[in-house]
């Protein structure tokens, strides 16, 4: 054996601390490549050696993707840089979306000893979050909380909205936040020079850059997601109606506080849907629930009833859709969303597809029921009416047609659809209130109304889920944990479209019921 070097441990090269390791975690299509290019250019123009890498390929197609840059002072030869970020070894982590910030934390790229985390708090929802028939949106609050612990410094703001407000895209605002964070040893002017030398959309980029720079230096608020206070709602109309409304409103406000918080918007919804008399009916229903409620439970039952009775009474029929589509406020809203400027015009096409059921639903209850029961007639109605209709509501003919249908409120109470909805509502309320004094169970059964939503097939599916949840609950209504099971069944029903989760939950119930 040859004599070995005395291999003993030595302190690491102090120059190593001069390497800055920066990663960008983005959703494909967010311009991560542009941002990386600016950062590289910035470093090189300021006497640094820099290296960037990415894994492009399928990344541009909406998938999560990582860009990675390393830089160190160029003096003294070319440093050896790594081609990928390593857990626990990242100085600056830029997450171009909130869940990507979470992913960076999971992957260990954010550590309390060194990482400055710059994250945009906006959400680009993943398909799995959007698909759920209920609310499948992941919790940003959990990621925020974890980031506070994981990062040495945490800079968070909605850099997407900020960029759009300034006529640019998120790469520019994130670059501004990076400059504002002071995590890189370069002055603001050097960052701006990098944007200018790229030569594309310079003005917008610089505006977004400036706004984000300021935001990173002095955050406008601790909680970036707080909403502006809700403006009060004004009511307009003929004096006779506003006076009647004032009476109704007084009657609603007389309900216990936890109830009227929801009863007031509920009342507004049903009156907007139909008329003052319908509103009075709503309050009547509510008061009869209240009569069986008690302060001991903080009126939870009536509170939930206030919400779901309003939703049930303001069902989605053809008249409501036509009415909503032809209101002036809607047009104003769309013009705002489409950013209509002076001199622009807007063409509006509605995508409608009425079926025989909708037509039959508009007929008088008894006659409509006969038609609905006749397959021949339903087939005939389908032949006449059921097809995709593109209605140009900026044109007079289509608008007038829809406007006329939207004015059929006076007719509504006589229709088949109304009769069906009222019957269903009464049955649901009777069933739910019938389980009293099992108070928690009654509350959960009221809440099951959430399952009924959508139109046509979707509506039918919701209805069937609703029926199955109530039926399964009835099976175990005598168990002490029945309320809990009812809630579980409802959550399962909202998990997937086909109701697989619900099937599973019902099987479980069948096994012990």
């Amino acid at each position, binding site marked *: 054996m040859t004599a070995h070097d005395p291999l003993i*441990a030595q302190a690491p090269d102090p120059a190593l601390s001069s390497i800055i390791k920066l990663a960008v975690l983005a959703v494909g299509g967010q311009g991560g490549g542009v941002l990386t290019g600016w950062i590289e250019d910035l470093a090189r123009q300021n006497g640094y050696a820099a290296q960037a890498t990415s894994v492009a390929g399928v990344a541009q197609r909406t998938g999560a993707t990582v860009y990675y840059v390393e830089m160190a002072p160029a003096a003294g030869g070319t440093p050896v840089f790594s081609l990928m970020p*390593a857990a626990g070894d990242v100085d600056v982590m830029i997450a171009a979306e909130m*869940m990507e910030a979470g992913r960076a*934390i*999971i992957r260990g790229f954010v550590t309390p000893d060194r990482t400055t985390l710059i994250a945009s708090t906006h959400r680009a929802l993943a398909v799995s*979050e959007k698909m759920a028939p209920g609310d499948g949106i992941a919790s940003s609050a959990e990621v925020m909380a974890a980031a506070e612990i994981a990062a040495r410094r945490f800079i968070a703001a909605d850099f997407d909205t900020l960029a759009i407000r300034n006529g640019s895209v998120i790469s520019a605002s994130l670059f501004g936040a990076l400059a504002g964070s002071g995590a890189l040893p370069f002055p603001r002017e050097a960052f701006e020079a990098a944007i200018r030398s790229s030569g594309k959309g310079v003005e917008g980029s610089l505006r977004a850059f400036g706004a984000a720079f300021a935001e990173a230096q002095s955050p406008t608020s601790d909680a970036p997601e707080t909403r502006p206070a809700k403006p009060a709602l004004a009511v307009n109309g003929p004096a006779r109606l506003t006076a009647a409304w004032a009476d109704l409103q007084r009657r609603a406000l007389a309900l216990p506080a936890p109830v009227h918080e929801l009863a007031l918007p509920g009342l507004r919804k049903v009156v907007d849907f139909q008329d003052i008399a319908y509103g009075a009916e709503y309050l009547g229903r509510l008061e009869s629930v209240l009569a069986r409620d008690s302060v001991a439970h903080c009126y939870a039952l009536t509170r939930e009833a206030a919400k779901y009775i309003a939703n049930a009474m303001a069902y989605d029929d053809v008249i409501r859709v036509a009415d909503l589509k032809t209101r002036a406020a809607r047009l104003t809203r769309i013009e705002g969303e489409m950013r209509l400027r002076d001199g622009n015009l807007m063409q509006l096409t509605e995508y409608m597809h009425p079926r025989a059921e909708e037509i039959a639903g508009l007929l008088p209850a008894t006659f409509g029921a006969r038609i609905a029961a006749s397959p021949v007639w339903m087939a005939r109605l389908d032949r006449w009416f059921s097809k995709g209709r593109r209605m140009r509501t900026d044109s007079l003919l289509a608008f007038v047609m829809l406007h006329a249908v939207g004015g059929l409120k006076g007719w509504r109470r006589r229709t088949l659809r109304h009769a069906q909805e009222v019957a269903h509502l009464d049955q649901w309320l009777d069933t739910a209130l019938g389980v009293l004094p099992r108070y928690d169970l009654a509350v959960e059964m009221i809440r099951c109304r959430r399952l009924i939503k959508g*139109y046509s097939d979707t509506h039918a599916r919701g209805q069937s889920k609703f029926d199955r949840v109530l039926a399964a609950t009835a099976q175990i209504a005598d168990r002490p944990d029945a309320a809990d099971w009812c809630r579980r069944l409802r959550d399962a029903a909202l998990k997937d479209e086909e109701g697989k989760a619900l099937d599973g939950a019902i099987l479980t119930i069948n096994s012990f019921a």
Partner: protein
Amino acid sequence: MAERSFKAEVEHLRLGEGETFTGEGILAITKALLENGVGYVGGYQGAPISHLMDVLADAQELLGELGVRFEANANEAAAAAMLAASVHYPIRGAVTFKGSVGVNVASDALANLSSSGVTGGALVIVGEDYGEGSSIMQERSHAFAMKSQFWLLDPRPNLPSITKAVSDGFELSEASNTPVMLMVRIRSCHVTGSFRTRDNRRPTLSVRDALSAPRSDFARVVLPPMSYAHEQDKIRNRWPAAERFIRERGLNEVFGSASAPVGLVLQGGMYNGVIRALQRLGLADLHGNSRVPLYVLNVTYPLVSSEFLEFCEGKEQILVIEEGQPEFIEQQLSTYLYRAGTPVRLRGKDIFPMAGEYTGQVMLDSLTTFLKQAAPGLLAAVHRAPNEDRPQIPDLSKTVPIRPPGFCTGCPERPIFAAMKLVQKETGKLQISADIGCHLFAALPPFEIGGATMGYGLGPAANAAFGGGGASRAISVIGDGGFWHNGLSSSFGNMAFNKSDSVAVIVDNYYSAATGGQDVMSSRADNATKATRNPISKALKGIGITWVREVNRTYDVGHMRDVLREALTTGKPGPKVIVASSECMLNKQRREKPLAAQAIKEGRRVETPRFGVDEDICTGDHACIRLSGCPSLSLKRLDDPLRDDPVASIDQSCVGCGNCGEVADAAILCPSFYEARVVHNPGPWERRIAALRARIIGWLQSRRSARRLTFEAAR
């Protein structure tokens, strides 16, 4: 073609002697080819080497000046076969494709080429797509070098090393009469850096000149008995010549202190990762000077036994750092040590994970483990016995959703799969196979369509077993790229010949969209150097397929569904083929958005469509999303205490393709969707009519609101 321009990149290719190139690795390789007097270049696009093909396609003028022939080959097999020009002629040729899939396709040609041997340098540049972000099955191209015996370069991932490997590769190929494969990993292809350029060189013999004096030599033909002689030639002459060249020219590198009890043997591509781990352990400085000896294999096949044994001399333990499996290099080196009867202990996959990418953490952990055992004195106390007190970071793995790639906003493939999903609602689940390309994203939620992919151009072939028909017909999906790659013969020829009673859907996006918009035979654009505008339907008719339906606007979901239904139910025998055509929206937008902006600026009339959702009408069931998955169709939480679930909402990235409206109509979902078409710079007549309409509509609206109660936010 997608009509993107690579003119800026082409300028890089013109840099001369002593200038500095700064940019991506794959572009540096392109430049190096020209510096080394390449006579012809070809290949097939795919990440991460598409850029090489794109830039050369735009550099026709420069290539013309240099006398270099460029072919956009039909597939990787065609590309590899093109290297035949270097068999008899002393012309340098290079082809490029994606590994390992490209090597799979090209393997027949590569094997024959390797048997024949080459006179001119033949270089195969393979973009190895392994590890994070990879879009293909995980395999190593390495095995192909071993089986056909061509040489494999795996240079250190920096621009000077990569470009030197191009030059070394040509020379090694010529010195040993063997083709050489230059492997660049995906991050090396996209790594940025600089290198000093040289002047471009004309080939000493151009392919055009070669045609004036054709050559042949039957000793080079792969036929017995010459093929037996080729095999012997490989072992007796070409291999030793390669070993000599590798040693004499120092292609492999040794770094670090000459005598130490341990040493690391690594693939060149692993170098930066190894140095980073050593830096973190305090064993290498900023510039990569390592205290641990490194034997860097810039040539990973063949492995030079003598050089390796010299490196091992006096060492107690050696660690082989080889990414991927099987561990070919480790096995070979073990054999060398065993045959030499040395006591050196060889470590490798007993420490490193057998499968998967060598990430920073894997590298650090494995090197630490090795050094702890083999040379504990080297490690500082902190690494020998880490005593970290880190705060507990909450586990987010249940919170953060996965985000696989999917169809882009406005993708014309989305409505095809929405239609397929609707058909399956009528028929029940169908047997569906897929090909390679964007359409494979349909396998993911929300569509979950298709259960297999057997390779490029093989979608319908993968359904061949079901070609006899049954209770319902099998459906296969293939893209236009796959169709022309080899789908016409392997899939459709197969279907036609076997009178297959099944359905194939060809997704035609006007060019090879997934790889960046390169032209194929059926591209709709004119191309000065390529024959485009050859309809797929014509090719199908040419091979005797008669039931062909063309859908020229895939966004018409109802129509798409009806055509699919017809294909599944028609009584006609033989293959049922649907050609569904609409342009790739990603590339289309890149081209047309700036044009529209310019037109608006110039005062011309432009309509910009976008979709929207009426939030009062949407009930928050999200059925539309389950038939779409479009990135611009998202959810929004309403500020309404009466509503539980978020409602659908379309953001400003919408390109107005119409899919959501069409789906809502075809699936009879709901009336929430509307299309708002903003008319920029309308004409005076149009303006007058609109004003009149607005007046009448406004009168109707105010008349109604005067008679009822309205609730609105106080201003």
